[in-house]
C-alpha cells in the first residue's frame, strides 16, 4: 500500500564509488590524511547533488475518515504542483457521492479545513500524505444563497402590500385610507432588495465558493420571516403613521436614500479595489463623497446598511423593523470586527487609526 522512497541508480553508483574509493585508500595504509578528507568531502558533494535529483516526482495521498479514522481511498500519482481542488476531483471520481465542494480536507484531525488552492508540495512532509476527510454536507453556491435570501423579501413584501383578502379583513382594507408613508415604505423596501439582487448578479465577485445548505435555510428563514412580520404591520389597515408626521418621514427617507447610495458605491469599490484589479491594498476613499467613510471605518458597507435600516425604522415607526435592525446591527458588528482584525494583520499602516464599523466607537 505504501510506496517507499527508493534510491535512484545514480545514487547507488555514487555510494558504491565512495565506498570503493575509501576502501582502497585504507588498504594502502592511508598515505595521506589530506587526500582522504578531500575525497570524503567530494563524495559528500556528490551526495548533495544526488539528493537534488532524487526529489519525489509524485505523491501518494491517503484519505482517512475524520470521525472513524478508517481509510476511504488512496489517491496516487499526484504531482507536487497539484492543488487540493485536483485531489478533490480525484476523490469524486473514486467516490461519486461526494462532489468536490462537499469534501473537507484537514492535515490533522480537528485542524482547519485546507483551502482548494493549497498545493500538495506545500503540505507534504514525505511521499505519502495523510489527509482527513469530512463530509461537509450538501453545498450550495453563495450566489444561490444571496439570490434566494433577497428575492423572497422582495416578493413577500409586495404580497402584503397588495392587501390580499386572506391576510387582512376585506371590509377594513377597502374602508381604510392608506397613508403615503405606506407607499413610500414599499418603494424603499423594494429598492433595497432590488439593489441587493442586482449587486449580487453584476457587482459582487463571488469566487465559486460554496456553503452548507443549512446556511441557505437559516438565511432564508431569517430574512423571509422578518419580512412577513414587518410587512404585515406596515401594510395593516390599522397602521398608525409616525408621531412627528412629514418631518420624521422626510428626514428618514433622505437618510435612507443616502445610505443606500453609499452602500452601493462602497460595494463597487470593494469589488474593484484598484485599477490593477488585485486586492493588493486596502480600499481607499476616492473623489466620490460616499467613499469618504473609508477614512474612519474598515467596513463602511455595514455602516451604511445599518443606517438604512435605522432610517427605515424611524420612517415607518414600527417595532418589528426596529428589532430586525437591532439583530442585523449585532450580526454586522461581529462581521465587521472579524474583518477589521484581518485588515489589521494585512494592512496595519492603513487601518490602525480606524474603527471597525461605527466611527470612533466600534
Amino acid at each position, binding site marked *: 500500500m505504501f510506496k517507499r522512497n527508493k534510491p535512484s541508480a545514480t545514487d547507488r553508483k555514487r555510494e558504491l564509488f565512495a565506498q570503493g574509493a575509501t576502501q582502497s585508500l585504507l588498504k594502502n595504509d592511508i598515505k595521506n590524511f589530506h587526500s582522504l578528507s578531500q575525497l570524503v568531502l567530494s563524495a559528500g558533494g556528490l551526495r548533495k547533488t544526488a539528493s537534488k535529483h532524487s526529489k519525489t516526482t509524485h505523491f501518494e495521498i491517503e484519505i482517512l475518515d475524520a*470521525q*472513524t479514522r478508517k481509510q476511504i481511498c488512496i489517491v496516487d500519482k499526484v504531482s507536487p504542483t497539484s492543488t487540493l481542488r485536483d485531489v478533490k476531483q480525484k476523490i469524486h471520481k473514486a467516490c461519486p457521492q461526494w462532489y468536490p465542494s462537499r469534501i473537507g480536507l484537514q492535515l490533522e484531525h480537528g485542524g482547519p479545513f485546507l483551502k482548494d488552492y493549497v498545493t500538495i508540495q506545500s503540505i507534504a512532509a514525505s511521499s505519502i500524505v495523510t489527509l482527513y476527510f*469530512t463530509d461537509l454536507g450538501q453545498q450550495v453556491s453563495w450566489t444561490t444563497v444571496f439570490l434566494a435570501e433577497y428575492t423572497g423579501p422582495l416578493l413577500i413584501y409586495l404580497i402584503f402590500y397588495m392587501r390580499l383578502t386572506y391576510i387582512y379583513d376585506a371590509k377594513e382594507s377597502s374602508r381604510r385610507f392608506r397613508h403615503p408613508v405606506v407607499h413610500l415604505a414599499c418603494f424603499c423596501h423594494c429598492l433595497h432588495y432590488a439593489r441587493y439582487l442586482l449587486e449580487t448578479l453584476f457587482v459582487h465577485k463571488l469566487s465559486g465558493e460554496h456553503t452548507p445548505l443549512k446556511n441557505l435555510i437559516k438565511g432564508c428563514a431569517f430574512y423571509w420571516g422578518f419580512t412577513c412580520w414587518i410587512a404585515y*404591520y*406596515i401594510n*395593516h389597515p*390599522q*397602521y*398608525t403613521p409616525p*408621531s412627528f408626521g412629514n418631518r420624521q418621514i422626510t428626514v428618514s427617507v433622505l437618510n435612507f436614500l443616502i445610505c443606500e447610495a453609499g452602500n452601493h458605491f462602497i460595494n463597487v469599490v470593494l469589488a474593484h479595489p484598484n485599477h490593477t484589479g488585485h486586492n493588493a491594498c486596502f480600499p481607499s476613499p476616492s473623489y466620490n463623497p460616499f467613499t469618504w467613510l473609508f477614512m474612519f471605518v474598515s467596513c463602511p458597507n455595514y455602516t451604511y446598511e445599518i443606517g438604512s435600516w435605522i432610517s427605515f425604522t424611524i420612517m*415607518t*415607526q*414600527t*417595532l*418589528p423593523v426596529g428589532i430586525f435592525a437591532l439583530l442585523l446591527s449585532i450580526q454586522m458588528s461581529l462581521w465587521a470586527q472579524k474583518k477589521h482584525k484581518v485588515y489589521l494583520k494585512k494592512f496595519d499602516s492603513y487601518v*490602525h487609526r480606524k474603527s471597525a464599523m461605527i466611527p470612533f466607537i466600534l
Partner: protein
Amino acid sequence: MASSEDEGGNGGSSEAGEEKETVKKRRLGFLATAWLTFYNIAMTAGWLVLAVAMVRFYMEKGTHKGLYKSIQKTLKFFQTFALLEIVHCIIGIVPTSVLVTGVQVSSRIFMVWLITHSIKPIQNEDSVVLFLVAWTVTEITRYSFYTFNLLNHLPYFIKWARYNFFIILYPVGVVGELLTIYAALPYVKKTGMFSLRLPNKYNVSFDYYYFLLITMASYIPLFPQLYFHMLRQRRKVLHGEVIVEKDD
C-alpha cells in the same frame, strides 16, 4: 505613537510581563473558583430550604393547596438568582454553552414570573406541585454536585444521583410545566393579559395566548435534545464511554 511605546515597554521586561499575566490569571482563577463555590453552596442551601418548607407545609396542612403561596418568595429569589449562570457562561468562568444555559434558565424564570406569579388561579393546580418537586430535587442534586466538584471531593452518591435522577425528574418537570401552561390558557384568553392590540403607535400587536401555545409547541423539539444530551453525558461520566459526536 502610543503603540510603539507600548511595544518598547513590553519588550524591555517580557519575562516580568509574562509572570504578571500568569499571576493575574491565577488570581482570576482563584477568585472565580471562590465565587462559584460560594454561589453553588448558596444555591444548594436555598433549594434545601425550599424542600424543607414544602415537606413541612404538606405535613402540617395535609394538602398542596396554598403550598405555592407559602414558598413563593424563596422560590422567586433563588430561581431569579440563577440568571447569574448565564453571566458565568458569558464571562467564561463556566465552560458551558450560553445558548443551552440561557434556554434552561429563561424557561424557569418564565414559569415562575410570567405564569405562576402572574396567574393567581393556577397556583393551586396539581401540576405546580409536580414541577416544584422535580425542580427542587434536581437543583439540590445539581448544585451540590457542582459544589463538591469545585472542592475536589465528590462523593460517588452525588455523582450517581446527578446522572440518574434526571431520567425521571426531567420528564416529570416538563409534564408539570406543560400542564401548568395549559391550565393558564383559558384565563389568559378571557382576560387578554400581557396582550397588545392594534392600532398603537409602535405598530405591533402581541397575543400572550398564542405566545403560550407557541411556547408549549417549542418543548417538542427542545426537550428531546436536552434529554439525550444528558443521557450521552451520563454514559460518558458513569460508564466511561467515548462518544464520537458529529460536528454541526
